């Protein structure tokens, strides 16, 4: 794995929530460059909320979020936009713009932020689509794509500006096991080939064991981080009942065989 010790994302004492509701408290962790990092938790544990705080959609109620050492909420104007371009986000359902073709969708960040000629922007978009195996669908509208294709197109768009980090919101939600495995392989390959840091929110144990280097597990009861570390190690050695419960019960379909091993 290409992960180095240099932290690319640092979360310090974050209190997350919106309105008057506090969802998470005292959240601190860091993500290393090149790592595939997963935020885990059951439904309603606040994983998506945490993600929205990290990518700057919600302001932190307390604490700070540093991306490449910079605090998104302390920056304004050009500097903020530049930091935003250091990462891409794949939303749960892709969030592709419905009035544009797949190629145009991937081109949007290039259209807005670069002064490249159209032919070059198109070529970049095509290379990104090729990386996710969607070149053949470049001229299709998002409504003509399947769920898995939409997610892949969204990853291509998230990578359009060659970001250092790609955030994935529930990458395997709503996908059949084969598409989901394909997506896992894609993420793994991109992380290896381009040293992109992936941060994903998920509860799919199969993907977690397949690709995640490190995870945090959120606890909705205490609103804090319950466990942090390599998911395979946590599964095999953690003595915290909730951690065992999470990894074993949800892992029954896929992980039974592995669980029997010492």
């Amino acid at each position, binding site marked *: 794995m290409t992960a180095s010790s240099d932290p690319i994302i640092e979360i310090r004492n974050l209190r997350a*929530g919106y*309105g*008057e*509701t*506090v*969802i998470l408290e005292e959240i601190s962790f860091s993500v290393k460059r090149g790592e595939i990092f997963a935020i885990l938790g059951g439904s*309603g544990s*606040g994983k998506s909320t945490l993600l*929205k705080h990290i*990518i*700057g*959609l919600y302001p932190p109620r307390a604490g700070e979020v540093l991306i490449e050492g910079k605090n998104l909420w302390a920056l304004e104007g050009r500097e*903020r*936009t530049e930091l*935003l*371009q250091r*990462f*891409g*986000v794949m*939303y*749960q*359902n892709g*969030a*592709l*713009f*419905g*009035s544009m073709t797949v190629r145009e969708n991937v081109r*949007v*960040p290039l*259209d*807005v*932020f670069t002064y490249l000629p159209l032919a070059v922007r198109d070529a970049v978009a095509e290379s990104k689509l090729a990386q996710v195996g969607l070149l053949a669908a470049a001229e299709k509208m998002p409504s003509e794509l399947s769920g898995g294709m939409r997610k892949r197109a969204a990853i291509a*768009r998230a990578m359009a500006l060659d970001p250092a980090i790609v955030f994935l919101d529930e990458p395997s939600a709503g996908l059949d096991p084969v598409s989901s495995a394909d997506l896992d392989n894609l993420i793994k390959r991109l992380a290896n080939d381009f040293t992109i840091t992936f941060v994903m929110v998920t509860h799919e144990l199969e993907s977690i064991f397949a690709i995640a280097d490190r995870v945090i597990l959120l606890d*909705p*009861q205490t*609103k804090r981080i319950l466990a942090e570390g390599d998911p395979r190690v946590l599964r095999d050695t953690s003595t915290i009942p909730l951690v065992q419960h999470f990894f074993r019960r949800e892992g029954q379909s896929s992980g039974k065989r592995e669980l029997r091993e010492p």
Partner: protein
Amino acid sequence: MSEEALSRSSSGFRFEILREDSGRVLLRLVGPLDAKSVSRSWKAIRRGLRRLSFRSLRIEAAGVDRWDSAGVAFLQLLRRQAEERFQAEVAIEGLPPEWVRTFEPPTSTAGEAAGSAEEAEGLIGTIGHTAIEEVTLAGDAVAFLGGLTRGLAAAFQPRIFRPREFFRIFESAGVDALPIVSLISFLIGLVIAFESARPLAAFGAQIFIANMIGLLMIREMGPIMTAILLAGRSGSAFAAELGTMKVNEELDALRTMGVDPIRFLVIQRVIAGMIATPLLTIYSIFVGILGGVLVMIGLGYPLEAVYHQMDSAVRIHDILIGVAKAAVFGLLISASGCFLGLRTRQGPAAVGASATGAVVTGILLIIIADAVFSLLLYLLNL
């Protein structure tokens, strides 16, 4: 043991309410406690309990031979009401273990915490929240106006303006509206001419229908009818489009790319609205006058006479006023539609609510702006 007897039997279900010597009240339930028996007996049980005042209630359910969620929920309700109304201690015996779990207070999660906070709010809280919401709305509207102004100023940066999107919107808001605008304007012109024909004939002034049609269509009906049609067709469409994008997280996607949704999505719509409305208005005026003129020809006036009459009544600034109004209406409709679209909340009903809100707000703003126009023009003697 004094007995407050209230025993009834239906489908094998019985209950009795007893007062024990210690002053404690005992509710004994026997038979199936399920949706059926609860629906039949809950009133009687509650009445029976309410008649007694007690500090301690024991519910004995060991004799219940069938349970379902309704039965368990009913006991839960009884306990809560007894605790709240009489500050009574309630003990329930004989609840099967598999149901005991459902009896425990739900473990608090964030969502439930939010829900209960809302539940606890009284009238004052409601007033307060509404006030806060209105203030937030006003704040959002000001921020939107600021963003819109800034965006309009920078509108002609081609990379963000996206001309193709503009033409797509212009086509659907403007060109596609031609048939309906034609029909409505034609009928309005026709109806105005017909309705005024008889009263004016009483004064031998039927030729003045031409003045009326001309001024009314140009200064009022043309701009207003077009604007109302546009509010219904396009204001709602803008709100629904942007609302759907919000629900699909497309707006979030733009924000995390560092793209301002106002510049990326709103500007084209506002400019399209501001151009389409005056053009449609000119067209509507023309068609409306055509309708009126047809009626006048039917009444026996030669086209030339009608033309001269109208020519003497309508001055060029009337047309400019009509077109200027239309541009303002177009701005109001498309800006309010986009604003409400961007403010869409989560969930499938939210898009519908935004679209409805856009039509209502659009029409309201048109009428208010029209009133302001009338007042100003009167004061300016135009």
